């Protein structure tokens, strides 16, 4: 799924005017922000854990080839298969080929953001497969033919009423003829509908919060239990994962897991953390017959090679967007891609290219709250500024944005000229604005004055006043 970030401004404006969405987003603040703050306040070791988590990720990334090869060897030793995909198209082809070979008709999916990144569902459906998201939130947005708007809470943009309407429309064929609006009843419908699908699935696709090199395991972190039913009941279990998901040992996962649920949800731990390794063993009574891992690059080696490498530490907790005042104003869909918020503003240009995601690094005040809450200390504002730099160097920033800055920088290195010019302009502006103390309208600055007054200057610049005061001393 490519980014549609031209049009960020339009989508943002729509989002600001959407009362339902605004209410839903406000609940993020009251919910997850408050919960995370409580969880962190209770844990004096949290700062040390952040340091340790960042160090584990950086160490792994600095030796990524070694750890991926070790991981692959362990998976194979334990009866699994590892595939490597350069990009989205290759990754989809690998999964499609496996499905074709086993004669799959039905595919169930646990939550996997990378599978959305590569557009897997559309590729499988084009082959005539039935693809069912089983995470309740993903199931809902799949029914609604929408993209998830948050990487942890896909339905944050939807009200209970909207979901009730959706189920009333689509669940009739399962025998649910009455419209219900109770959350428990609605989820009960999801449970009922999907229970038989889990058993019918030929292939189950899950993601991976972590890949463990030591044991060749993939780790999934859920609350619903759908990930395990997906991977255990299908004949074939396929794991889709970015190459940056590997960590060295089980103890490394323990550190990162302590950070993950607290940062994402304000919980110490989720209901389920599963380490899945390979197909069923000879004595097992359940489990898949085949186990495949698709390791996906899709721009990650490019990030590894440059200043953007710290972004690969990301453990997909969503804390950055939960605390971002821009995300909290416009929601996830405004970003136009799979990954929204601060992490999306870095990832989308790197995955899809600057041309497809040009606006995202600029839709940010660089206030730094994201970096403060990131469990692995990713310097997100620095990375966004770096992307702006790349855009500047590569000519993506043009027109007013470019020459305005160029003109300012030119003047700024000519202080004598600057002081003379500004003394004059400010005197005039101060005169014009003196009576009201502010401007209601300013040419060239309607972005400011449409909804704000511009305070008027004080009729002199500081430098002019200082020079005058010095002369008078």
């Amino acid at each position, binding site marked *: 799924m490519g980014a549609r970030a031209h049009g960020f401004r339009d989508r943002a404006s729509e989002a600001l005017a959407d009362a339902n969405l605004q209410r839903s987003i406000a609940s993020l603040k009251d919910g997850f922000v408050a919960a995370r703050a409580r969880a962190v306040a209770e844990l004096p070791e949290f700062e040390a854990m952040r340091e340790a988590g960042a160090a584990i990720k950086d160490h792994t990334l600095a030796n990524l080839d070694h750890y991926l090869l070790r991981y692959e060897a362990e998976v194979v030793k334990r009866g699994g298969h590892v595939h490597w995909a350069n990009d989205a198209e290759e990754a989809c082809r690998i999964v499609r080929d496996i499905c074709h070979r086993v004669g799959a008709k039905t595919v169930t999916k646990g939550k996997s953001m990378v599978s959305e990144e590569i557009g897997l569902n559309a590729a499988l459906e084009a082959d005539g497969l039935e693809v069912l998201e089983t995470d309740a939130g993903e199931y809902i947005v799949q029914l609604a033919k929408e993209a998830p708007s948050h990487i942890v809470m896909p339905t944050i943009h939807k009200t209970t009423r909207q979901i009730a309407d959706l189920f009333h429309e689509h669940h009739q064929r399962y025998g649910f003829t009455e419209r219900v609006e109770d959350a428990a009843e609605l989820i009960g419908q999801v449970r009922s509908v999907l229970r038989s699908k889990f058993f019918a699935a030929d292939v189950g696709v899950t993601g991976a919060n972590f890949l463990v090199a030591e044991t060749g395991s993939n780790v999934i972190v859920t609350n619903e239990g759908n990930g395990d039913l997906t991977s255990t009941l299908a004949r074939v279990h396929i794991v889709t994962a970015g190459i940056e998901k590997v960590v060295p040992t089980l103890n490394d996962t323990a550190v990162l897991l302590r950070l993950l649920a607290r940062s994402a949800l304000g919980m110490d731990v989720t209901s389920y953390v599963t380490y899945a390794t390979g197909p069923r063993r000879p004595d097992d009574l359940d489990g898949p017959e085949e186990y495949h891992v698709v390791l996906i690059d899709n721009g990650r080696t490019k990030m590894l090679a440059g200043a953007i490498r710290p972004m690969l530490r990301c453990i997909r907790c969503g804390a950055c967007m939960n605390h971002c005042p821009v995300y909290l104003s416009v929601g996830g869909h405004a970003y136009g891609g799979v990954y929204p918020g601060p992490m999306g503003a870095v990832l989308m240009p790197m995955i899809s290219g600057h041309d497809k995601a040009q606006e995202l690094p600029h*839709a940010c005040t660089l206030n730094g709250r994201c970096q403060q809450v990131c469990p692995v200390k990713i310097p997100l504002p620095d990375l966004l500024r770096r992307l702006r730099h790349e855009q500047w160097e590569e000519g993506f*920033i043009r027109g007013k*944005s470019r020459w305005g800055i160029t003109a300012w920088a030119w003047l700024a290195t000519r*202080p004598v000229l600057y002081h003379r010019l500004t003394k004059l302009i400010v005197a005039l502006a101060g005169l014009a604005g003196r009576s009201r103390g502010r401007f209601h309208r300013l040419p060239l600055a309607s972005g400011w004055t449409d909804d704000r007054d511009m305070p*008027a200057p004080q009729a002199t610049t*500081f430098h002019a006043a200082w020079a005058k005061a010095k002369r008078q001393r």
Partner: protein
Amino acid sequence: MTLTGSTRGGETARPRVALFVTCLVDLFRPSIGFAAVKLLEDAGCIVEVPQMQVCCGQPAYNSGDTEAARRIARQVIATFSGFDYVVGPSGSCMATIRNDYPEMLSGEAEWRDRAKALAEQSYELMSFLTDVLGVHLDGVTYPGKVTYHDSCAGLRTLAIKAQPRQLLADVDGLELCELQDAETCCGFGGTFCVKYPDISIKMVSDKVGNIEMTGADTLLGGDIGCLLNIAGRLRRLGKPTRVFHAAEVLAGMASGPGIGDPKAEKA
């Protein structure tokens, strides 16, 4: 004013401080600059204002024009060498000098070292007064209920949080009421406020709503960019809240018009 800190220049010599005016103070509100000078001189500093200064380079740096930012940084470094300290009434500009200059110039050995030296001497005004000079204010009055907006760069890059509150606690008659979401961005963000006005207005409106909830008659902060933004929205909405830079109150220079107010009517 009493001092309990210790400074460069030794026990007897008065520290030589260069004022980093900042472009917005220079253009929009020189009174903040004069307040800063007063506070520094009252604290025993010798204050100079080098003329060859315009801007810290942050607009260029944040827009991606790193080369231009470097040119400006070299000029600032050259202008401001030879002082004991460089102090400015802005967390955002001083964070650029402290944090970003060494990084920006890391590829040029000589300038990198000079940038590091300047960074170590550079301070935001209020943190300089408390952390370095150990200033306690005497005889400053501001009767009123005040609330405080923590500007992002100063807060997160320079850890400025307690210092303004410590200084404001010395002001007679001033009642400080904490702002809900004091640490949430006001939506200024440099060029962000004109590039993404819809989003910026939402953010500043939320800030105004929180200000109203405190019942304060005055909003203070440490960065004029934020204050222009918030005052602009307050005035457009017809709210009576007055807006000053904290330095103006601390220097006893807040009896005139606030930011965005007309010149005072004759009583």
